[in-house]
């Protein structure tokens, strides 16, 4: 049947071997309803096809209207049946402006075929053409029959199998993959190409061997120039018809991925074609599916596939099927066959190697695999003693030893004859890059994540709160091996640090003014009769005026800084001017007045704790040629830049309002809320000038985020950061200084009773910070429980300690894993760190 059809097709095609027609031919549609075998089905009028189109693939080649309505899934009750006649004749194609009208036109045209003969075929065609039509289209009708019935069955199955495919993937994949293995390619169930040369949409244009057609990568349906755009739409996954979007490409067409076509180039601009091809190559649906690839009898996970494809020496032309892989030596081959190539060794993919993997019968084992005859020949050529069926261990570098023996007996690849003869026996020789160990390979993979995979496995962890910026920076160090910060980023950070220095200085100068006034006032109070300033006091309170006063030149500079701060354009002025003012800054910093102020820094609430670190190095930093150290980066407080931090500030201002941009993060998996444990006695001035305790502010922010509709069902991880600072200050400044923690009574804390029986607070004091942190965590947990009735995860972290950050992030990922209970979070170290890095810019 098929043969007959194709023969007829050929004759049919031969009659049409003229120049390719850029327009569709309405009259080519055979509308002899009586000849269609499925008369009952096709008798439904094509003008109202919405109901009949889907169960009726048989009509497809006949009536474009059915298809156009199927594609547009829209019933046109043909209100304009009279209208299109004049225009429709010639302009059916290629006027994308009015596609809808054209659909109508095409539809009605074909439906009313007898009444509106087309003049497409030229003026002379008229009367002669008419009798020709039936004859010409006789074959076409039969082809419609065959392909129609074929289509029907395959289409029905198609729908069916698609669903089954998803459900019973595990059961089904093996036989299918087996089929793929034998044939070398895997044709999807919905493949429908190769049957006909006509356009699948308009049924027209036999063309010459399908020339001037574009075919769908997934199902093989071919469309003519006029129909391609309508059938394939915006081609988000390359050349696939609309129904096939999301389906895997046919293996036989994999080679065509990303190869441009003449048809598209005719229709679209070069840039558009380029983008279509790019998405074709890169989109996730077109990639090799990991579940189709078996290595050593085990289905690969997506991550393993990436490792495999991303290694320095990947197997060439990987296709679905069964493979064996010798992890020790890197041999790679199809199951039941001799080695095909040597890939990077030590990749952690697939199961363990089977003795019968390459179906050898020589009795000689290499790394536990019985080798094939040709391999044995090769070994003999290489001068390896093979008598007595020895068992060998072969390493990736070609050294081999006998099982159970320590001595390395030699290198297989040392003899030039081996390399010479390998191609003769069609055995692989190692690639130069193959000798890298798998460890390195994994690292490489971690650095370069393909676009498509990134989108599939990204798990977003939202990092919110104070200290978040430091964690992000740490994460960059941890997971972005190589260069964690680009030159630009370093430059930015440098600017931030430099302008921060001016900020800190400004705060100090403000403090200095205050202290000067205070001490002046004090002095007047204490000794109103003594205006002269001769003696110098010992204690800070009754200081001389001079201790806080500056020499006039520095005073001018300080006034200027303060003025700039008041105007709020400090950041704009100073980084640019840092070169000029570096000496002044140095002088200012070394001035005893500033140093005296700095000693009283605990009285300056706005001076961030990290200021110490930078102020100590102020002189270095303010120089233009200053180069950051990694520690500087970690200490850099993202006051001005880091969005992770700053955005939250915005949010805390519009506290209980609906914070719009949080909606963007509705797909995050976990919200990591950072609270600086040292915040409890720190204050900040809000927009209205009221002083707010930072811990209380954090709590409010926490509440508003937890209650935000976007995060309704989200998991929360509370990170208590800056525990080092907490340790430093907890003894000086009691935790109860924050209103929220006023019931902190460490002596009756259960923590103390249970965990620190040996150490009392008075004797060591070491557990006090722990107790405080524990107490804060409990406070937050209770609050969370109250708000959501769920459990809050808590972890403690010192953000300056890389290991502690790593553990905290690891914990966060564990939480996601628990919730997921699916192993999708595997190779995601970098995926994770990609995420926060986007915050910091």
């Amino acid at each position, binding site marked *: 049947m098929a043969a007959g059809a194709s023969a007829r097709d050929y004759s049919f095609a031969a009659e049409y071997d003229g120049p390719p027609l850029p327009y569709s031919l309405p009259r080519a549609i055979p509308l002899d309803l009586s000849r269609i075998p499925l008369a009952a089905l096709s008798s439904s009028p094509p003008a109202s096809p919405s109901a009949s189109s889907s169960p009726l693939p048989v009509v497809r080649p006949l009536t474009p209207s059915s298809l156009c309505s199927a594609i547009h899934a*829209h*019933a*046109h009750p043909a209100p304009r049946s009279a209208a299109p006649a004049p225009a429709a004749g010639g302009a059916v194609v290629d006027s994308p402006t009015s596609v*809808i009208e054209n659909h109508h036109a095409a539809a009605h045209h074909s439906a009313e075929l007898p009444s509106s003969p087309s003049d497409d075929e030229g003026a002379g065609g008229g009367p002669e053409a008419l009798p020709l039509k039936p004859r010409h289209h006789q074959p076409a009708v039969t082809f419609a029959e065959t392909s129609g019935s074929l289509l029907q069955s395959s289409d029905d199955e198609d729908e069916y199998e698609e669903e089954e495919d998803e459900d019973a993937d595990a059961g089904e994949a093996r036989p299918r993959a087996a089929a793929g293995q034998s044939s070398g390619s895997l044709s999807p169930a919905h493949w429908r190409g190769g049957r006909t040369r006509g356009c699948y949409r308009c049924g027209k244009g036999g063309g010459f061997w399908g020339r001037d057609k574009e075919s769908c990568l997934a199902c093989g349906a071919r469309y003519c120039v006029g129909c391609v755009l309508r059938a394939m739409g915006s081609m988000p996954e390359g050349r696939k018809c609309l129904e096939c979007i999301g389906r895997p490409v046919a293996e036989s067409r994999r080679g065509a991925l990303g190869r441009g076509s003449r048809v598209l180039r005719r229709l679209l601009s070069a840039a*558009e074609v380029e*983008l279509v091809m790019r998405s074709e190559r890169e989109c996730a649906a077109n990639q090799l599916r990991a579940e189709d690839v078996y290595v050593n009898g085990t289905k690969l996970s997506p991550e393993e596939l990436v490792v495999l494809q991303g290694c320095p020496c990947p197997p060439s032309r990987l296709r679905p099927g069964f493979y064996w892989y010798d992890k020790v030596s890197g041999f790679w081959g199809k199951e039941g066959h001799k080695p095909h190539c040597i890939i990077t060794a030590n990749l952690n993919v697939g199961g363990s190697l089977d003795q019968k993997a390459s179906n050898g019968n020589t009795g000689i084992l290499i790394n536990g695999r019985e080798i094939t005859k040709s391999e044995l020949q090769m070994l003999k050529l290489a001068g390896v003693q093979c008598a007595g069926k020895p068992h060998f261990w072969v390493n990736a570098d070609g050294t081999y030893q006998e099982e159970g023996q320590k001595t390395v007996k030699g290198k297989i690849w040392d003899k030039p004859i081996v390399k010479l003869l390998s191609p003769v026996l069609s055995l692989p020789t190692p690639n130069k890059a193959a000798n890298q160990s798998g460890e390195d390979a994994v690292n490489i993979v971690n650095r370069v994540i393909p676009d498509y995979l990134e989108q599939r496995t990204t798990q977003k962890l939202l990092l919110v709160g104070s200290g978040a910026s430091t964690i992000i920076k740490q994460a960059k160090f941890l997971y972005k091996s190589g260069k964690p910060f680009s030159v630009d980023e370093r430059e930015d950070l440098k600017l931030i640090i430099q302008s921060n220095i001016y900020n800190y200085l400004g705060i100090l100068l403000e403090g200095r003014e205050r202290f000067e006034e205070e001490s002046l006032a004090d002095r007047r109070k204490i000794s109103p009769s003594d205006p002269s300033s001769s003696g110098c006091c010992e204690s800070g309170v009754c200081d001389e005026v001079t201790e806080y006063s500056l020499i006039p030149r520095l005073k001018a500079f300080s006034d200027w800084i303060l003025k700039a701060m008041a105007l709020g354009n400090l950041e704009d002025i100073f980084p640019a001017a840092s070169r000029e003012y570096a000496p002044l800054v140095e002088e200012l910093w070394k001035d005893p007045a500033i140093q005296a102020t700095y000693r009283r820094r605990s009285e300056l609430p706005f001076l961030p704790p990290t200021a110490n670190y930078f102020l100590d190095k102020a002189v270095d930093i303010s120089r233009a040629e200053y180069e950051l150290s990694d520690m500087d980066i970690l200490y850099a407080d993202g006051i001005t830049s880091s969005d992770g931090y700053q955005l939250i500030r*915005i949010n805390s201002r519009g506290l209980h309002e*609906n914070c719009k*941009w949080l909606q963007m993060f509705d797909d995050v998996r976990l919200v990591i809320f950072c609270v600086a444990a040292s915040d409890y006695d720190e204050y900040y001035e809000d927009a209205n000038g009221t002083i707010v305790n930072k811990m209380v502010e954090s709590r409010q922010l926490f509440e508003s985020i937890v209650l935000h509709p976007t995060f309704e069902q989200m998991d929360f991880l509370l990170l208590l950061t800056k525990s080092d600072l907490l340790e430093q200050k907890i003894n000086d400044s009691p935790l109860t200084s924050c209103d929220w923690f006023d019931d902190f009574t460490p002596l009756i804390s259960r923590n103390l009773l249970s965990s620190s029986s040996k150490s009392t607070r008075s004797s060591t004091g070491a557990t006090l910070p722990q107790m405080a942190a524990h107490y804060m965590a409990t406070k937050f947990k209770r609050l969370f429980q109250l708000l959501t009735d769920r459990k809050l995860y808590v972890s403690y972290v010192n953000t300056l300690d890389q290991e502690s950050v790593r553990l905290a992030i690891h914990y966060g990922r564990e939480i996601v894993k628990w919730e997921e209970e699916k192993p999708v979070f595997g190779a995601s170290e970098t995926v994770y760190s990609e995420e926060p890095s986007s915050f910091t810019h």
Partner: protein
Amino acid sequence: MASVAELKEKHAAATASVNSLRERLRQRRETLLDTDVARYSKSQGRAPVSFNPTDLVCCRTLQGHSGKVYSLDWTPEKNWIVSASQDGRLIVWNALTSQKTHAIKLHCPWVMTCAFAPNGQSVACGGLDSACSIFNLNSQADRDGNMPVSRILTGHKGYVSSCQYVPDQETRLITSSGDQTCVLWDVTTGQRISIFGGEFPSGHTADVQSVSINSSNTNMFVSGSCDTTVRLWDIRIASRAVRTYHGHEGDVNSVKFFPDGHRFGTGSDDGTCRLFDMRTGHQLQVYSREPDRNDNELPTVTSIAFSISGRLLFAGYSNGDCYVWDTLLAEVVLNLGNLQNSHDGRISCLGMSSDGSALCTGSWDKNLKIWAFSGQRKIV
């Protein structure tokens, strides 16, 4: 110290008097506003626009984003659309062929808005990076196919929620931001020309969500904000808002000038759209949907657009509806969300092509759809 307390007292008194005056103004407006557009047109015997469900059809689906679509904009001349999505890409589409002409990977994926320059040669976008990035579409992509940023406009202290080029001026751009200000930029120099709001007392008191520039007088623009007000600004006078429009009870998410330039529409979190008269400050009409039977929360209006005549108001809602309002009679004539082929997710942005022939909708279902009129137009 005493003076501070005194000042505070004075300030409180002044605030109270401002509030009372504002209340009086509102009452006065209410008495003056004896009718609204709908009642008046009904009394004039205007018949509503009638729409068949098939009259507006989805003729293109633009697929290609892998994240929620947040914003879109048409070119004034060519039929190009730029869309911004949470996958961190800007895509420029040819609306006719539905193909992508450019795909621009962004440095910061949290993009919220995008805009086409009047000449169609460059696009701007902004988002949580608090900056507005300009891309020249003619510039060469690098090896990885990434488009270089031609300019970054920095200076906002909060996220950039919306941006629009001043019509006919390639070099002028207005952005609105979460830092409560709007800024007029000179794109060529990257400098701020003027800042609207912020320190000035007549500025917005919460995040600004949207701006719309009057197309008939490009010196005027309105901004809608989370402080529930809309403010009218004159580009030449940055120091104060020309007028403040009260009325909404929720964040104003979207503002759009009426085609005639004398009115503008708003869409808000309170679930209503409103039409304001720019000059008198009156609220002409409220377009509010009936609360559904289950008494759920009203879906919020995410974006609005006017038809070229102004007779139709398209409003996208957070539940995926897209109502077509008859602006005269305040009736819903069609819901694009109920049509075949409609979006699956929230409709986040709407845009009317400059010739008015097509409407583009962007949604959280990652797709954009182009809708066009297919029925017979009855002029009412």
